[in-house]
């Protein structure tokens, strides 16, 4: 028997007995980051592929939600900060070593760009809309002319944003469950998948929905592949990584993860999307909502499980 106890009664709030510094705020922030990355990525990508008039919803309409969502995400992040009045300190320095710094600056860049992107398409979306000032109109018309350039920037930034949501966690060597480089790609793909699901959910264009059903199925396939890799990597790792994997293989996270995230959040919606493509009558809302919900739950579980996994010494 090995008995390892702290005998001086340490009970630091949020640290003992189990680390619990991050709750729903960070999960939501990471989820929204991924979702926005997905939305902007597809919008910009379709522009680069010259499909902007074919898939108007995903290119022009859905990105309108991006600044709003980003606002909610940043609000969630802000709520999590415990020394809120010093928030501005984030923007007095760029620290390349710190994923948190990267994220803050990426958001700083992508937020105005997403606003610009929305404004470019505002007149296309609402034909009666008119800018109150001519210089604004001229500005966004110019912007539209350079939309490919902006789209390139958006593709790059949204990939960084989607990746960052995973890297933020994976950079923590101290938490074995997070400390795997596959978390970045996994969160990126999951973010893109939720972006595609958002398009499926709200688009009125059947062709657009079918396209993104296919895209989503492919993304889910990649995601499942990454998840399997995640656990294979852990199980082939050192003891603390094996223990981290065991949290999901018989441990407390087993049921929520494999039932709600993997089965109901990935496999089943992919199956439903497949059946729908095969002309079965399935309301497109169902798989889309399942994917969106599964994505959120994935963040919640990963954020929580990482804090439950630790080095033993």
């Amino acid at each position, binding site marked *: 028997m090995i008995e390892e106890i702290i005998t001086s009664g340490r009970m*630091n709030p949020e640290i003992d007995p189990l*680390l619990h510094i991050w709750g729903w705020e960070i999960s939501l922030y990471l989820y929204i980051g991924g979702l926005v990355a997905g939305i902007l990525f597809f919008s910009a990508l379709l522009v680069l592929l010259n499909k902007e008039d074919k898939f108007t919803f995903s290119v022009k309409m859905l990105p309108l939600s991006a600044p709003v969502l980003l606002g909610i995400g940043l609000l969630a992040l802000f709520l999590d900060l415990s020394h809120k009045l010093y928030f501005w300190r984030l923007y007095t*320095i760029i620290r390349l070593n710190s994923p948190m710094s990267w994220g803050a600056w990426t958001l700083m860049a992508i937020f105005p760009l997403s606003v610009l992107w929305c404004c470019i398409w505002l007149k296309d979306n609402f034909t009666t809309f008119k800018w109150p000032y001519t210089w604004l109109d001229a500005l966004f018309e110019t912007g539209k002319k350079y939309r490919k350039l902006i789209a390139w920037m958006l593709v790059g930034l949204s990939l960084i944003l989607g990746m960052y949501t995973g890297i933020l966690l994976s950079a923590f060597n101290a938490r074995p469950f997070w400390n795997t480089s596959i978390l970045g790609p996994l969160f990126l793909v999951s973010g893109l998948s939720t972006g595609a699901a958002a398009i499926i959910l709200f688009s009125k264009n059947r062709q657009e929905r079918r396209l993104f059903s296919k895209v989503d199925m492919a993304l889910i396939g990649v995601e499942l592949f990454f998840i399997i890799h995640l656990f294979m990597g852990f199980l082939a790792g050192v003891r603390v990584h094996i223990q981290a994997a065991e949290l999901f293989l018989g441990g407390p996270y087993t049921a929520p993860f494999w039932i709600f995230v993997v089965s109901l959040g990935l496999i089943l919606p992919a199956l439903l999307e497949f059946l729908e493509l095969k002309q079965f009558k399935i309301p497109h809302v169902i798989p889309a909502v399942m994917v969106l919900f599964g994505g959120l739950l994935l963040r919640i579980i990963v954020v929580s499980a990482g804090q439950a996994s630790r080095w033993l010494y």
Partner: protein
Amino acid sequence: MRYAMAIDTKKCVGCSDCVVACQLENDVPEGYCRDWIVEITTGTYPDLQTEIRSERCNHCANAPCVRCCPTGASHFEDGGIVLVQPNECIGCKACIAACPYDARYVHPDGYVDKCTFCLHRVKKGQQPACVAVCPTKCLYFGDIDDPRSKISLLLKKRKWKTLIPEAGTDPKIYYLI
């Protein structure tokens, strides 16, 4: 100059004087602590072994908390002491997540707080509070860059280990075993 601490586990009895000394010296809020005692027992009765350790921030040379801090609030002072500058800290808690030793906590005032090696005392030429009060004299604080310091000599003479060396943090708290 590189400050470090060596803790003789053969002598430590886990009395927790170091914990109370730290709390009083540094006005640590009630319910919090910057140092603590761990007891590990291995084996089966009657073949048993225990190790008692007074633990605190390891003031790592490769500190993950300093690396992940987005504002630079967590930083290295002269002598390698890892410190948090409260008015630069935004309370994102990334450093807490990054520390494999769980040595940090959020102070009730919002910023992240931890062991400072009692820098304010060290600057005056005094020992950190925990070292000063230890009744078994099992804590040694000093400069490991100085080959003639007591701690350097001890680390040369005795067998020692650090905690979680495999995490690659290069900790500067040495446990004499």
